[in-house]
């Protein structure tokens, strides 16, 4: 059967093909494009790029007060006088050049020769290096700041001290869980009583309350019976006691940790403090360091984990005692050790102060004000650096992978994190430590929440050949007839044009 296409029918066919092609291109392609694109909320990419070149100005306010009699009358006239106040500070020691008090004061001593016959400016110039040294101890120093940034800039710290310090302290986290455990391997011989609630209330809680700007702490305690240490201590005849050498301490923790358990429902880091009372057959038990000397505290700690103390009770009862013996543990002694370990694990500097410096003991709370300031400085810097790294790497990730969906809440978190970082940097520059720390905590929370949002999963890796394999069976059967008809029309039109040309000639 011949199908003789009349001119009008052919014209209608061409029109139909053209209109179908037009619909496909004008309506279909944009529709497909819009429906297959992923939703990406707007992120402040330019601000984030600025953040990556982080410049921190840290400023600390220093007030220099001259004691009466220190300055000559001419020098005194140059200085503005506000008020007179009588204060007494008792400082002992002859070789002491600087005395650092419990709060935020330090006392410097300068010799008479140094201040005679000098103008005020010269005097200040003389004092400046000493003041700088005091500041380095009390607020922050170069090594402190670079240690706080150690996760962002891994470099040679130049001293084993600073490296161990950066490894020892916990990374900044919004909260910590502290667990006190009493290990009793021999309940048949010893019945232990410890007033942990009272001890925590008296000794630990004030310390943690003072640290509350830094993080939230939650405390719990437990008693474990029949919990052994993982190593067998050796009996030393000269000492008449069992010795645990420093080398074997590393293997003590693992077997115990399996039994500790924790009721932590959050993902906060856990600090474990263990009090071990050796059983009657292995008492007394002493820890020896590498130089074979007894450790007076009988305790050791592990970086980013916690501490263990061995408490000997052999001397509390004689050989004729009736088992089980009731033993009350001296919580003051125990908490003294645990508080020291807690201080180290939270990030206090353990290195001795420079020569000529005398540091006041830190009082009943266990924390001097300037130590808290030090922690706040390094914590703020650490938070800001970590948050900046998180935000910049998140922005980079989202930029690189075009297939990830960016929800509105992520965009909002990122924007608030960026704002908080800028505010924190501004506060640091102004010297408002409290506000800077608060902003830095906010930015850490927001940036972590944005980075670890469960919806940001890049499961959409499609290599190009897979993309072709998906689209070709859908679009090829539809596009081929359209293309063929368009081509036929084009060749028809060209043929007619050539005929017309031939007719003209």
């Amino acid at each position, binding site marked *: 059967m011949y199908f003789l296409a009349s001119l009008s029918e052919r014209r209608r066919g061409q029109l139909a093909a053209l209109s179908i092609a037009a619909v496909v291109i004008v309506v279909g392609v944009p529709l497909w494009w819009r429906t297959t694109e992923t939703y990406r909320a707007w992120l402040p990419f330019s601000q984030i790029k600025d953040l990556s070149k982080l410049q921190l100005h840290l400023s600390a306010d220093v007030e220099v007060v001259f004691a*009466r009699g220190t300055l000559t009358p001419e020098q005194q006239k140059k200085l503005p006088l506000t008020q007179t106040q009588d*204060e007494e500070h008792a400082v002992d020691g002859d070789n002491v050049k600087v005395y650092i008090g419990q709060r935020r004061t330090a006392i410097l001593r300068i010799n008479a020769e140094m201040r005679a016959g000098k103008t005020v400016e010269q005097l200040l110039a003389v004092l400046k290096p000493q003041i700088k040294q005091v500041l380095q101890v009390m607020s922050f120093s170069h090594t402190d700041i670079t240690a706080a940034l150690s996760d962002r800039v891994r470099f040679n710290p130049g001293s*084993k001290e600073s490296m161990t310090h950066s490894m020892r302290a916990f990374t900044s986290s919004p909260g910590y869980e502290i667990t006190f455990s009493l290990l009793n391997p021999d309940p048949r011989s010893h019945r232990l009583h410890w007033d942990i609630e009272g001890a925590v*209330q008296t000794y630990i809680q004030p310390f943690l309350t003072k640290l509350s700007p830094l993080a939230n702490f939650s405390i719990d305690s437990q008693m474990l019976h029949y919990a052994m240490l993982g190593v067998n201590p050796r009996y030393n005849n000269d000492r008449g006691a069992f010795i645990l050498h420093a080398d074997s301490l590393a293997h003590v923790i693992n077997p115990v940790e399996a039994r500790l358990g*924790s009721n932590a429902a959050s993902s906060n880091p856990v600090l474990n403090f263990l009090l071990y009372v050796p059983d009657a057959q292995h008492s007394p038990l002493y820890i020896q360091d590498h130089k074979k000397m007894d450790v007076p505290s009988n305790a*050791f700690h592990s970086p980013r984990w916690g501490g263990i103390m061995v408490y000997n009770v052999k001397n509390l009862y004689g050989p004729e005692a009736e088992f089980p013996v009731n033993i009350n543990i001296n919580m003051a002694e125990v908490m003294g050790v645990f508080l020291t370990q807690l201080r180290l694990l939270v990030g206090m500097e353990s290195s001795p102060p420079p020569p000529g410096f005398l540091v006041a003991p830190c009082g*009943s709370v266990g924390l001097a004000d300037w130590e808290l300031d030090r922690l706040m400085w390094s914590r703020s810097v650490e938070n800001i650096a970590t948050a900046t790294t998180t935000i910049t790497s998140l922005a980079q990730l989202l930029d690189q992978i075009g297939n990830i969906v960016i929800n509105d809440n992520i965009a909002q978190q990122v924007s608030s994190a960026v704002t908080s970082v800028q505010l924190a940097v501004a506060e640091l520059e102004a010297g408002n430590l409290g506000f800077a720390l608060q902003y830095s905590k906010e930015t850490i929370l927001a940036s972590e929440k944005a980075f670890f949002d469960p919806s940001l999963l890049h499961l959409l890796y499609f290599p190009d050949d897979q993309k072709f394999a998906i689209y070709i069976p859908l679009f090829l059967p539809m596009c081929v007839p359209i293309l063929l008809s368009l081509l036929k029309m084009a060749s028809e039109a060209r043929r007619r044009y050539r005929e017309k040309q031939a007719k003209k000639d």
Partner: protein
Amino acid sequence: MYHIKVSQFGRSISYFYLRLVFISPRFVQNSAGQFFSSGHTNNWAVLVCTSRFWFNYRHVANTLSVYRSVKRLGIPDSHIVLMLADDMACNHRNPKPATVFSHKNMELNVYGDDVEVDYRGYEVTVENFLRVLTGRLPPSTPRSKRLLSDDRSNILIYLTGHGGNGFLKFQDSEEISNVELADAFEQMWQKRRYNELLFIIDTCQGASMYERFYSPNIMALASSQVGEDSLSHQPDLAIGVHLMDRYTFYLLEFLEDIHPSSKTNMNDLFKVCPRSLCVSTPGHRTDLFLRNPESVLITDFFGSVRKVEITTEVLNLTHPIQRVEGSPVNGESHREVYSYVDQLPVSEIIHQKPKQKDWHPPDGFILGLWTLILLVFFKTYGIKHLKHIF
């Protein structure tokens, strides 16, 4: 004694400039004492078996053997994320229920009685694996299912199953590609979720999986090169399936000689299972690793040797313990009453509004069905009858 007259002087402000640019990390070689030479303070292990079904018994045995070694060398369960299909021990075809053997003649039961599987059955998916690695888990995920590593953690990652050139098959239904894995590791590095990473893979063409890594501090081992198959070790005639793969079998033999204080280094690990025993050629990749493999101990990854410091100074606390607040005067205790969250809030469910679902265009099947119906209709009745319908 000093009497101090307070007189305002002025302010002396010290500036502290810091320019922070991301400097590529150079690692510290501290030869003075192995004490802090590795730079890590804790160890984690992520052990994944990506197969299910009875005939893949050997993959589960592989993973459980590595789990057992890692536990023996000290890593606690809280630091191990174990992903198994876990359908071997209680499988109907298992002649010895509740056991998974790794050696012929049922010498060694690696299932034991203290195996803690974190992701089992259908939870072992590519998505969950990537979520564990990158940390993007929903907030309700319990601690045991999370990888809570920090920048001082050494992580051991062990994968086994069926793989190919550039991909690894997960539970017969999906696959993970080497690019995705490399991207996941890069995200871990960006967030400093590891100090050093040891990646071991025991599949066919395993070396293709570590070709694309580009993050620093990763060392990778594979049981076979691209184009080679990893073979299984020995069948057990009583159980009826192959019990272990060759590479992991010899790896296990090697690990049985390691104890928590041994000083064997990584170069010995690279020599495990030579071609004569393994038939395939094991490969390794250390160019991204900053330390010399010779100075890396096996226990840096497989064990958990803690660093310890002696506590030298002690605070002297002298004030006595305060009595904790007792119960109030009227004798009632102010105990907080805890109660469980309502597990099935029926009233909320009844009165819930139906969720607004996004509108999707009709599925291909529906479209095809309607097209067929329309075609048949127009064929039968022709177009000129259309006006009778509409």
